[in-house]
């Protein structure tokens, strides 16, 4: 059985003409079907890591292995890019065609997928992101969240096993964000697609299986959301937020109320406070 879908081994990366490396000795292993959130402020190395995962960049030192394929192996390049699809921050920069269906077809043409196979793949990709009704629409008439879903469909049509999202919700409004995250969550659960979800939104990271926190080119923390966010002081030092409810839990504890430290959501906080204070039935 495949144990590791993404393996990052002692990876360092230095941009051309840069003095300091953007990544230093990074090690990470991602299991098939895992949903991993990557946090870190700008310049922490998150995006560099993302670009190493589908061979947009090659490590200066160490190696990145995607489903057993080393990203430095030129022979495997197209297979790696087909396996590990990537979506970016700006919905407007990722759409190339003037009709949604053609935009989804674009990647397939590049992969050399037989023409008779294409309509089926496109239909199924659009259905997976609930955009079938918009197949003939012009992308510029869509909302930001819808455009991101079309971009995701373009990747899904290539039948990847990994989706890398580099701040895919940063430019969306709250409902667009929820719609894109929910779409990717569903793909992760139903199709077992492994997800690397780079984000600045702590609430999004709180729903991941695992969180990796980057700082100054290194992995500063890793663990389940509860394990990571309970370290409120460390997160603060890294200039990162913690979810509001985790913050409140900590300040209540400091005020003498024995609230459990692993609270992330409003529902969990409601249960915790009720355990201590609600009238018994």
């Amino acid at each position, binding site marked *: 059985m495949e144990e590791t879908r993404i393996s990052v081994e002692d990876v360092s990366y230095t941009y051309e003409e840069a003095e300091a490396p953007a990544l230093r000795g990074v090690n990470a292993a991602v299991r098939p079907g895992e949903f991993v959130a990557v946090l870190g402020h700008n310049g922490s190395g998150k995006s560099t890591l993302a670009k190493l995962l589908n061979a947009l960049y090659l490590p200066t030192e160490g190696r990145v292995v995607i489903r057993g394929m080393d990203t430095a192996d030129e022979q495997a390049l197209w297979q790696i890019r087909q396996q590990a699809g990537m979506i970016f921050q700006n919905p407007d920069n990722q759409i190339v065609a003037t009709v949604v269906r053609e935009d989804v077809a674009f990647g397939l043409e590049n992969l050399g997928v037989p023409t008779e196979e294409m309509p089926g793949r496109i239909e199924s990709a659009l259905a997976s992101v609930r955009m079938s009704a918009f197949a003939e629409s012009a992308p510029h008439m869509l909302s930001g969240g819808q455009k991101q879903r079309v971009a995701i469909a373009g990747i899904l049509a290539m039948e990847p096993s990994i989706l890398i999202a580099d701040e895919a919700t940063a430019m969306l409004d709250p409902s667009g964000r929820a719609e894109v995250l929910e779409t990717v969550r569903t793909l992760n659960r139903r199709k077992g697609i492994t997800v690397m979800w780079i984000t600045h939104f702590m609430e999004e990271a709180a729903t991941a299986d695992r969180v990796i926190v980057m700082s100054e080119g290194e992995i500063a923390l890793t663990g389940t959301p509860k394990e990571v966010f309970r370290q409120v002081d460390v997160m603060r030092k890294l200039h990162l937020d913690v979810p509001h409810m985790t913050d409140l839990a900590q*300040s209540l504890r400091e005020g003498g109320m024995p609230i459990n430290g692993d609270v992330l959501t409003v529902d969990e906080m*409601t249960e915790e406070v*009720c355990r201590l204070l609600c009238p018994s039935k």
Partner: protein
Amino acid sequence: MQAAMPIEVRHLTHTYSEGSAFQATAIRDVSLTLEDGEFVAVVGHTGSGKSTLVQHLNGLLTPTEGQILVDGMDMFAPGADKRLIRRKVGLVFQYPEYQLFEETVAKDVAFGPKNLGLSADEIDRRVRQAMAHVHLDYDQYAQRSPFELSGGQMRRVAIAGVLAMEPRFLILDEPTAGLDPMGRDHILGMIQELHRQGGVTVVMVSHSMDDVARLATRLIVMSKGQVVAAGTPREIFRQADMMASIGLGVPEAARLCAALRGRGLMLPEDLYTLEELREHLLRLWKERGKA
């Protein structure tokens, strides 16, 4: 006679591409007033008309119907001095850093004041002051290319360009969109200082109810091109059902407060900040200890 409000929007309607197949009315019969010293947040779903509304406040868009009065002067009346109005009302667009173009930060910030025909000394004073307002050290950044800076810093340069016009009203359309938490905190802290210490009246379009809860003195809630509610954060956030009906949330503290009240906990119904919720919960906990 009643004194005129600093900014009055009267029965404003805006229709894009009027007369064409793409005709769309973005806002319909909106009336509101803005007073000196306020920090007004404009909230609403995407497409609710927020950006269209604020782009009228400095005359960037012209109303299809209705009027906008700044200090009693109708901005769109024939012969109105639009330049004077633009000096009073500064507008920071969404992603304003896309519009930086000069070779150096100082030149970019100086662009507006230069167009006003001010003296070199006055321009220099304004550039230094505007950079100080956005926390960019003059000696360190003035001669650098804006394009070498981080996204958050570029945005601060763009905001400094608006501040160099020394506006009395600062209108910002989603000033933190796309920034990381540090960049967000920095921009919001800076806006708060301008409001509290600089005496600038702020109108901010935002999607973050938690930011709005912390900063705004008044909220304007828009839906489908109309103002559906206006009031203090406390008045608005107690109406969680109304907000949900137009696709908006309330701050997490307000949601927690409602959930706990639903479970029988004696809390006031209008708490909306984490700080006040903390105070109330700790008081209940202490009373429980004594009982």
